[in-house]
């Protein structure tokens, strides 16, 4: 696509719904409910301030969490014609600093619920920022303590001039920059373009026949790209988004019932949790129309358990790495046919969305026929073009395939097999990437941190306890350093890694066991920790 081409912003769907469904509820969060018109007023004010900052950089950071300003922030940034970079108050300040630095953002929108994290972040920054706090009155202490940064408070925003949204933007404009775990020890930025998200939203809205009467759950943190589905599929059709509070996210059964949610979307781990808490009684969730799961392998037993509770809903297993925009394939559960189509008790990832293409290749890069196991490569309008400022990694993962012309394909690293009908089953990974409670984790990133603090090459992290293709957490094994203090190691990890990546325990051994090929014997390590 040429630089001069124009595309519709993902903001358009919201803007159209403001015009069509102005008084219809758009957002329910923290006991507050805002109509499209009310939310739009906040978005206009914020977009206007972002415009007035006169920062020509295309990205703006967002540090906000499950609040009105988190959502107004996403929309305000997009409405100002910028892409948003979500940051997470649950991540350690050092990781947030790293993400902010890598993104290059010079403007940051912060919700009042994240001011304490902001205060920890600012002293770590070398670059000067414009910090916009839409719901914080003048905080003189912050302004004076961090005088190298410019602050814009609520009072300044209310005086902002009227703003007209930017709905048509350059074809290569970024909608959001999402960071995922990176194998080198540094988070990896994935830029997703408006055209990628528009393609996804249009397909999914039609496929699920979304209407203004739908009520969407919003369970994912903004740093998880599945949150983009919740927000933009919902607002595209004038539906209402219900933010699941932190406490309800632990056990959302009552939340689904109280708010009569019609569209549920979460990681499959939630099913196991609710089941263990005996919260999946038959017909518990009669309001659900669709139950969507994504982010990690979905066990067939979990799908069956969920459908007993959500018996009026259709269940789909979605699949898609961040690089392919939210999800790119789907499989609809059928109680008669599906149990036989599962492989190793895991629900298939199904067929690519219309217009997206999957190709399964062998080690030589040549396409394999149905029935053969190989690496899944993806191509289509939802697939991004590379990593943020990382040419080497881009060339490694975005490739041309033999006999497939000039098309660029994303190598997923997922091992799959398809049957004669084209239905794809997930079988595992080609590398050490794993899913911890739905979060994508490069074990090498944890190991890089461990090597640094332990000053050794002999550091391994293992998903543990593992269950049905996913894991609850990790443990670490350190060789030849028995005198190290576990507390110091874990504290160091907590400063650099998000909570779900911090090992729950450290095992100290004399030597790492090796297999016949001289490689580290990971199954042997599992035995060592009692697996």
């Amino acid at each position: 696509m040429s630089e001069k081409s124009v595309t519709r912003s993902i903001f358009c769907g919201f803007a159209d719904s403001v015009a069509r469904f102005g008084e219809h509820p758009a957002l329910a969060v923290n006991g507050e409910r805002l109509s499209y018109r009310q939310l739009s007023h906040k978005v206009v004010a914020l977009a206007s301030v972002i415009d007035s900052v006169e920062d020509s950089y295309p990205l703006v950071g967002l540090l906000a969490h499950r609040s009105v300003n988190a959502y107004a922030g996403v929309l305000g940034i997009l409405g100002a014609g910028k892409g948003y970079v979500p940051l997470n108050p649950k991540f350690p300040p050092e990781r947030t600093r790293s993400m902010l630095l890598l993104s290059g953002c010079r403007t940051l929108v912060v919700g009042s619920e994240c001011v304490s994290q902001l205060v920890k972040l600012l002293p770590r920054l070398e670059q000067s920022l414009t910090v916009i706090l839409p719901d914080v009155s003048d905080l003189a202490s912050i302004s004076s303590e961090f005088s190298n940064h410019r602050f814009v408070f609520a009072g300044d925003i209310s005086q902002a001039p009227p703003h007209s949204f930017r709905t048509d933007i350059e074809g290569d404009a970024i909608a959001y920059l999402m960071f995922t775990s990176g194998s080198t020890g540094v988070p990896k930025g994935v830029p997703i373009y408006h055209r990628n998200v528009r393609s996804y939203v249009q397909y999914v809205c039609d496929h699920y026949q979304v209407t203004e009467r739908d009520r969407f759950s919003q369970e994912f943190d903004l740093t998880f790209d599945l949150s983009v589905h919740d927000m933009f599929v919902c607002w595209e059709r004038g539906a209402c988004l219900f933010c699941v509070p932190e406490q309800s996210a632990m056990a959302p059964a009552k939340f689904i019932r109280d708010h009569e949610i019609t569209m549920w979307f979460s990681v499959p781990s939630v099913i196991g949790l609710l089941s263990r808490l005996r919260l999946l009684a038959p017909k518990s969730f009669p309001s659900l129309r669709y139950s969507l799961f994504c982010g990690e392998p979905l066990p067939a037993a979990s799908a069956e358990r969920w459908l007993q509770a959500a018996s009026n809903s259709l269940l789909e297993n979605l699949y898609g790495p961040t690089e392919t925009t939210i999800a790119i394939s789907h499989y609809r559960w059928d109680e008669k046919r599906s149990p036989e189509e599962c492989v190793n008790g895991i629900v298939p990832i199904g067929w690519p969305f219309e217009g997206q293409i999957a190709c399964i290749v062998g080690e030589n890069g040549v396409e394999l026929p149905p029935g053969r196991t190989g690496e899944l490569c993806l191509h289509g309008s939802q697939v991004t073009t590379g990593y943020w400022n990382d040419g080497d990694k881009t060339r490694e993962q975005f490739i041309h395939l033999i006999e497939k012309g000039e098309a660029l394909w994303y190598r997923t690293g997922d091992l799959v097999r398809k049957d004669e009908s084209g239905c794809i089953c997930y079988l595992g990974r080609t590398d050490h990437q794993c899913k911890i409670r739905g979060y994508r984790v490069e074990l090498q990133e944890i190991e890089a941190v461990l090597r640094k603090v332990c000053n050794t090459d002999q550091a391994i992290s293992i998903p543990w306890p593992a269950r049905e293709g996913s894991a609850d957490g990790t443990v670490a094994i350190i060789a030849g350093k028995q005198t190290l203090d576990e507390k110091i190691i874990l504290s160091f990890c907590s400063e650099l890694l998000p909570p779900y990546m911090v090992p729950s325990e450290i095992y100290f051994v004399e030597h790492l066991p090796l297999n016949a090929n001289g490689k580290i014997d990971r199954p042997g390590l599992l035995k060592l920790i009692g697996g």
Partner: protein
Amino acid sequence: MNGLSESHLIKLVIEWVKENNPKRRTEAIEINQNTDLFKSGVIDSFGLVDLIVYIESEIGCVVELADTDPEEFSVVRGLCRIALKGDHSG
């Protein structure tokens, strides 16, 4: 029912959380009956399941969370009250 009082159960829950929370190795965590287990980060969803299993083993009956408010069961005292409310065996 094994006749546990609310205050005794609160004490047991606090001890369990101190011994099992993921931050125990790196931080000195202050936990009392008013601590919000989720907001304070001393427990996650998997920890909640383990804690419920522990409480059930102590009180000898099932803890019913189906119609309870998360804001109540996320606090130590609220969780203990819910657990003992559902204890019909005695």
